[in-house]
């Protein structure tokens, strides 16, 4: 009963079109930033390493390496300040939280790219039965 009431309250804060992305994706997060009167969009690029929470409290964490230093930013998924989340690259991930990337340096940070769309179109597939 209480949870249903809270869900009703949160409904007004939820986005109608929730950004679609998966854990392990490399994304561009477009955030609206107010500078005085002017509004501009800032882009944060990185790998989605976690999603947490539910309802209006849901957040996702994006990690990137800036000048050799790991930087993580946590965004509220439903925040009006998040203009758009653009998926640049889909990574293969077998777990929901990619905290292990924090311990990795250099090339080991990369995730295997998802191949489904390319596999359908690319000549690779035709090569596999031959081999």
């Amino acid at each position, binding site marked *: 009963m209480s949870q249903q*009431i*809270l869900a*009703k309250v949160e409904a007004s804060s939820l986005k109608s079109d929730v950004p679609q992305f998966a854990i392990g994706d490399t994304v561009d997060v477009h955030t609206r930033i*107010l500078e005085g009167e002017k509004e501009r969009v800032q882009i944060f690029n990185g790998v989605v390493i976690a999603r947490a929470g539910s*309802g*209006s*409290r849901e957040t996702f964490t994006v990690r990137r390496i800036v000048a050799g230093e790991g930087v993580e930013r946590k965004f509220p998924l439903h925040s009006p300040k998040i203009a758009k989340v653009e998926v640049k690259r889909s990574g293969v991930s077998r777990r929901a939280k990619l905290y292990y990337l924090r311990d990795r340096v250099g090339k080991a940070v990369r995730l295997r790219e998802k191949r489904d769309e390319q596999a359908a179109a690319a000549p690779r597939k035709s090569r596999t039965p031959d081999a």
Partner: protein
Amino acid sequence: MSAENTTQSDVATPGRTAARPGRKGILGRKVGSTQVFDAGGAVVPVTVIQAGPCRVLLVRTADRDGYAAVQLGFRDKPRRLASRALRGQVAKLDSKRARRLTQGGVALPAKADCEPQRFVRELRGEYPGVEVGQVLSVDLFEGVERVDVTGTTKGRGTAGVMKRHGFKGQRATHGVKKVHRHQGGTSMNTSPARVFKGKRMAGRYGNERSTMRNLKLVGIDRENNLLLVRGAVPGPNGSYVVVRQTNMIKRVVAAGAAPVSKKKAGAK
């Protein structure tokens, strides 16, 4: 908006009521807390209170009762669970005493004539326009910016001084033996040779009345009888609370000059 109302009632009713302008109050239940986004996109932590509809059970007046107040009831209680006293609170029950009083020419107060109520509280003060039997809803808080919320804090049972009074406890090392969460000394030496009264010690903590004042009213949901209040409210989820329009002085940024000039006048 609320400031306007205050001035209006001041003008309309001079005398004692002018000093205590009519307030607004309602009873409710703490549903839980969550967060919403405001117009600017910032996250606002809110506590959801299911408030009203409340029945007005009794209006106390200075003439008859010696003080002004309204008695509100929240949530129906099944008649089979309500005592005769509770039932008599909301409806006219025939009793020997009532008969004797009417014969003696005493006018009995009017009754709301509704189901017995689970949560009944009296709110002190003048509540202009509130009558017995009336149903109050969250509409009442239309235009109200800030509220006070009174509830009963979560009971902690017997608690130590660190939790109860925020003492620092003792060190983790340096020879401290099994007293890491104890207080230090409680008093002095041969003089005064006793512990002063009121010395803060371990004991029963929580489960007491507490009021959070001047909370911002973030939203009103008329359809579901909900009030959204910024920040935390005392008590566990599901506990009963009293929500009142705050009587704290409103700080208006635009008219900041007004209180300053008042101060200056007082100094002279």
